[in-house]
């Protein structure tokens, strides 16, 4: 009967129900979009790091992110790393921003990623045209199809210029997007060094070393040993480097704060609206609650009716909100920053909705707690 009464009270005033649901829906959609963007950004930022096949990363000391590592590690350091017990392979990699000159004029910034696929540090993925072999041609690069427009080119076969070197698109990937909005340009290691190295002094330098361990080697032991040998570097686990990149792009730039702030705002607005409608509904039905109390219901029975009202609103509001959020998600799939929804996020949103509605019930519950059952006779 608690559910029946809650349901009837809820549907008794359709307009108020609509306001409640819009409040929850607004909240859910806003929070879903903000957190979806947050997740989408995080994935984009860490995608490249996740795809590498490495146990440890060696970066220059204080390297901020994948795109901002500097080209400073020397081949001497690489050999020192290779000589460390437990190390199987040390794969050099170059990553840096560079200027891309469009064939039709104008320029844009790109993130050049130089690595040799045959080293096994970063296997090619999501190739839709051409092969990794094609990129070994002297001027070859691979770019993501979604950036063709930004790069001012049509597709495979087109040429452009990076810094002072000519490049030709030989392969296309799909879905490898960059959080910095500077398209990734994939090319072999030496080619990248040449493109980025205008005066020749960085001819054998690297941005990162991807370290693979011997089977059975202890990660911490090797890490400590590497750190001791290589001055001026950071030796990080994959997770540490991922977190560092996230911290750089999401928090130092304020983007993540804005997304999380937006989500909190959504929660706040939703809570206020639901609290307001629940309170006014309780006030409207206060005589019924007083009658219940006079009939001998316990205080908790009445609280359950109000919580059930809140819970029902939550379930309905969440369902509608999710439908809209998924729609937005679908529409964003080809945008520069697609939203991401995971079962975990969906579940968290549901828990959040329930929590929000429970908090909203507090003022209504305080109202009924003060009911004087004696009022039942004075009507």
């Amino acid at each position: 009967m608690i559910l029946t009464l809650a349901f009837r009270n809820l549907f008794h005033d359709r307009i108020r129900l609509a306001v409640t649901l819009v409040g929850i829906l607004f909240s859910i959609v806003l929070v879903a979009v903000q957190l979806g963007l947050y997740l989408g950004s995080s994935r984009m930022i860490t995608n490249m790091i996740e795809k590498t096949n490495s146990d440890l990363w060696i970066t220059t000391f204080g390297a901020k992110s994948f795109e901002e590592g500097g080209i400073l590690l020397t081949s001497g350091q690489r050999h020192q790393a290779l000589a460390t017990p437990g190390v199987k392979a040390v794969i050099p990699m170059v990553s840096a921003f560079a200027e891309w000159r469009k064939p039709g004029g104008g320029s844009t910034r790109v993130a050049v990623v130089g690595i040799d696929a045959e080293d096994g540090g970063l296997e090619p993925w999501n190739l839709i045209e051409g092969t990794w072999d094609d990129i070994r041609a002297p001027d070859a690069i691979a770019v993501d199809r979604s950036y063709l427009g930004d790069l001012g080119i049509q597709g495979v076969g087109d040429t452009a210029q990076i810094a002072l070197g000519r490049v030709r698109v030989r392969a296309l990937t799909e879905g490898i997007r960059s959080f910095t909005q500077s398209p990734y340009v994939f090319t072999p290691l030496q080619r990248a060094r040449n493109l980025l190295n205008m005066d020749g002094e960085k001819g054998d330098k690297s941005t990162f070393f991807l370290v693979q361990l011997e089977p059975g080697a202890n990660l911490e032991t090797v890490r400590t040993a590497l750190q001791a040998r290589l001055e001026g570097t950071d030796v990080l686990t994959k997770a540490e480097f991922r977190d560092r990149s996230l911290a750089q792009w999401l928090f130092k730039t304020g983007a993540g704060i804005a997304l999380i702030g937006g989500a909190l705002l959504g929660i706040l607005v939703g809570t206020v609206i639901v609290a307001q409608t629940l309170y006014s509904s309780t006030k409207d039905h206060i005589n019924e609650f007083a009658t219940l109390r006079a009939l001998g219901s316990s205080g908790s029975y009445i609280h359950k009716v109000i919580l059930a009202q809140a819970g029902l609103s939550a379930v309905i509001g969440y369902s509608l909100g999710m439908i809209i959020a998924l729609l937005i998600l679908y529409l964003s799939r080809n945008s520069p920053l697609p939203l991401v929804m995971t079962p975990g996020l969906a579940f968290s949103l549901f828990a959040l909705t329930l929590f929000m509605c429970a908090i909203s019930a507090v003022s209504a519950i305080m109202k009924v707690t003060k009911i004087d059952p004696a009022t039942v006779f004075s009507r």
Partner: protein
Amino acid sequence: MTNETPVLEARDIVKELGKGAGKVMALKGVSLKLVPGELTLLMGPSGSGKTTLLSILGCILSPTSGEVRLAGHSTTGLGPEQLAELRRQHIGFIFQSYNLFPTLNAVENVRIALDVLGQKGYPAAARAEEVLREVGLGHRLQNFPSNLSGGEQQRVAVARAIAASPSIVLADEPTAALDSENGHAVMALLARIAKEQNRSVLAVTHDPRTLGYADRVVRIEDGKIVGEERRPEGVNSPEITDLTKKRRKANA
């Protein structure tokens, strides 16, 4: 009947209402006993303290001084939750304006009183329908209050009050909002509940039409009990009296 042990007893009840300048002594030392099987009417002018007394007897208000004993136990010093527990175990209430739940139909209105007691599911639904049939509403089970006449609504309220078989039924002006015919019907119902189900029924009223149904009439004025009349043994309530008359006529 008069020497039966009371199920509900009030002793020297004093009740002050309001605060400061608006303070009123609504009851000034009232004692009253209710025994099973009797319909007692509490009569008195408006403002004499009838509703206040009913609220105290029903464990809704606590007296300023004096003691209420329910089923042999004192209620003095009990908290709101304990009083609520006593109400749902022992007392059924009927109100002047019915106080039905507008969003629930007749059966559901009765079921909620059982639900509060923890009686749920099919047995509760069956019991709710049973009492509604008892009060003559077998054909109105699914109607919402807005689709019931005043008399029907009050009968739903009576069904709700007796559904959990309380030993005491308290009614505040149950006929005040009803026309004569429905008023009589509800009073006859209350008399039947007292007799056939051996409950103590107390009805507050200032409606003289109800007099004929009473086993006992208690008069209250200005917060004090000023008189009590009891129907002499052997004298029956009106409908029975009518029947007896008819029978006598037929025999004559």
